């Protein structure tokens, strides 16, 4: 295990930021800490980096107890949401900083900097100041700077949060590929479930200072431990006694399926290739949301006021209403 977090707690006054967190992250894995803002995920990352001290519990990095170590001694690379580049240094100097602190020979520093700038595609900007770079370029610079010291773990705090949507998507793909090349144990914090599902090997869902679930993207999506995880990872609707995803509902225009709930189509909204239905289900306060393909909707000949019968598709992911954990 590269990172072992045991029983970590942290409070700010009355506010409980983290409550008895236990998690172990294997070497070489790309892990996402996913959760809503203020849920404690950034605090956990900063405790691992030594930028905050936990009130209780311990942090072990590469088998060494790091609980009491200052950030300087942990050999972690940290990447900030707002880049935190050294504005008065050139791009190359930024990357060289950690190596110079470690008093590496000049030739070695030079070679390493050149290698890293190549890796993050910034070689031609080596002698520019950070102010001459775009946001995406600055974040790649910050990443190169963190990787230069060959950290045992790489920690990224909302690394793409300050970038616009298009650049964010590019950098996300690029981070995945980079990780496949470099294989450094990586933890990144995000509140964007799509980002986590797309990039991470494993996702730790954190909410209100507690871990809700740990698992692979597929596990989380298919077998959410509870209502919160299910809701956080995608759209959720209610059908009878369970909550499930709107595309996991089968629509029939005639009764027949055992246990199907009858209802009336209240609204139909076409968005691109899909159709979103709002169905008033008998005996249910909340209307159910259903998503189906446009072709399917046309085949069923649905319109406002149509009577429909809804049932979960076979193998649908669902959690019981109000229930914490499905049996």
């Amino acid at each position, binding site marked *: 295990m590269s990172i072992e977090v045991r029983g970590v707690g942290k409070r700010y006054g009355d506010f409980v930021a983290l409550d008895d967190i236990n998690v172990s992250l294997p070497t070489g894995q790309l892990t996402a800490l996913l959760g809503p803002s203020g849920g404690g995920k950034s605090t956990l990352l900063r405790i691992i980096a030594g930028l905050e001290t936990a009130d209780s519990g311990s942090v072990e990095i590469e088998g060494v107890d790091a609980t009491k170590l200052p950030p*300087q001694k942990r050999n972690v690379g940290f990447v900030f949401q707002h880049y935190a580049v050294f504005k008065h240094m050139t791009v190359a100097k930024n990357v060289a900083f950690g190596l110079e602190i470690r008093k590496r020979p000049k030739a070695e520093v030079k070679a390493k900097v050149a290698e890293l700038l190549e890796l993050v595609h910034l070689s031609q900007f080596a002698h520019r100041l950070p102010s001459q770079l775009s946001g995406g370029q600055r974040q790649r610079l910050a990443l190169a700077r963190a990787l230069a010291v060959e950290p045992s773990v790489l920690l990224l705090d909302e690394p793409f949060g300050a970038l616009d949507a298009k650049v964010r998507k590019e950098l996300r793909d690029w981070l995945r590929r980079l990780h496949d090349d470099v294989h450094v144990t990586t933890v990144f914090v995000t509140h964007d479930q799509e980002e986590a599902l797309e990039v991470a090997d494993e996702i730790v869902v954190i909410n209100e200072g507690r871990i809700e679930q740990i698992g692979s993207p597929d596990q989380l999506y298919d077998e959410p431990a509870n209502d919160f995880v299910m809701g956080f990872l995608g759209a959720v609707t209610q059908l009878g006694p369970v909550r499930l995803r709107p595309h996991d509902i089968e629509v029939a225009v005639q009764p027949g399926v055992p246990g199907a709930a009858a209802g009336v189509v209240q609204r139909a909204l076409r968005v691109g290739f899909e159709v979103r239905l709002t169905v008033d289900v008998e005996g249910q306060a909340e209307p159910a949301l259903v998503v189906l393909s446009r072709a399917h909707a046309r085949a069923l000949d649905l319109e406002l006021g149509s009577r429909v019968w809804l049932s979960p598709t076979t193998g649908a992911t669902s959690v019981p209403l109000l229930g914490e954990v499905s049996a």
Partner: protein
Amino acid sequence: MTDTLVAPTGPARPTRRSSGLFRLTPTSGIGLGVALVWFSVLVLLPLAAVVGAAAAGGWGAFWNTLTDAQTFAALRLTVVEAALVTVVNAVIGTVVAWVLVRDKFFGKRILDVVIDIPFALPTIVAGLVLLTLYGPESPVGINIVNTREGIFLALLFVTLPFVVRTVQPVLIELDADVEEAAASLGASRFTTFRRIILPSLVPAITAGSSLGFARAISEFGSLVLISGNTPYQTEVASLKILKFIEGDNQAGAAAVAVLLLLVAIVTIVVLDLVARRVARRG
């Protein structure tokens, strides 16, 4: 935090943007004319008169005045004292700003007000205030009257706020992330200060120091009571000008004055350059 009485944050220049500005109307044109006439009458013409008086006797006379042994000694003393004070202020001013921004202790707000007092006090009062503690009737037995140390102390007093007040806002705005980044890259607190924080403060320290230097070169009021005006010993440039005026040597006074004017203009130019460099770095 930054209630400065005379904010030394450098001149308030309008931006270069000229689009979106109105064109002069007849009314505003007259306003501009009146303003320019008044500005000329009050500032430009008198300053031109100084330059004219200095140039009246030709380059030779100008040069002779400045290289006269007694005048030269006064100029040298002024520059040396001002330079010393500037160096001390660059260091101590930065330390004071650091403590006021980063440390937290009871009474810090009072210290913050104390910084402004040397600016707020009339200069002659500043001299008098220093003399009560360090003058002939000093309760601590130190008498600085008519000594170079006295001039140094007076200049230190009147220039105290410059570096502090220019560095303080920059220090407040510094990004904590950057210091955390340096720490996680292995930099000690001292290294972080030397290689990350200090370089960010250099433009502000330069700006504050040049303001302080210009002030020290031209200081008059606080030195009147302290400096004994002994030629070759404790006579500074501004007091030398006064002596020239009182001796009805207007050309001599103007020659020294032109030199002081030059320092003032160079300071303004330096500040403008620093401001632009900072703006470019973003």
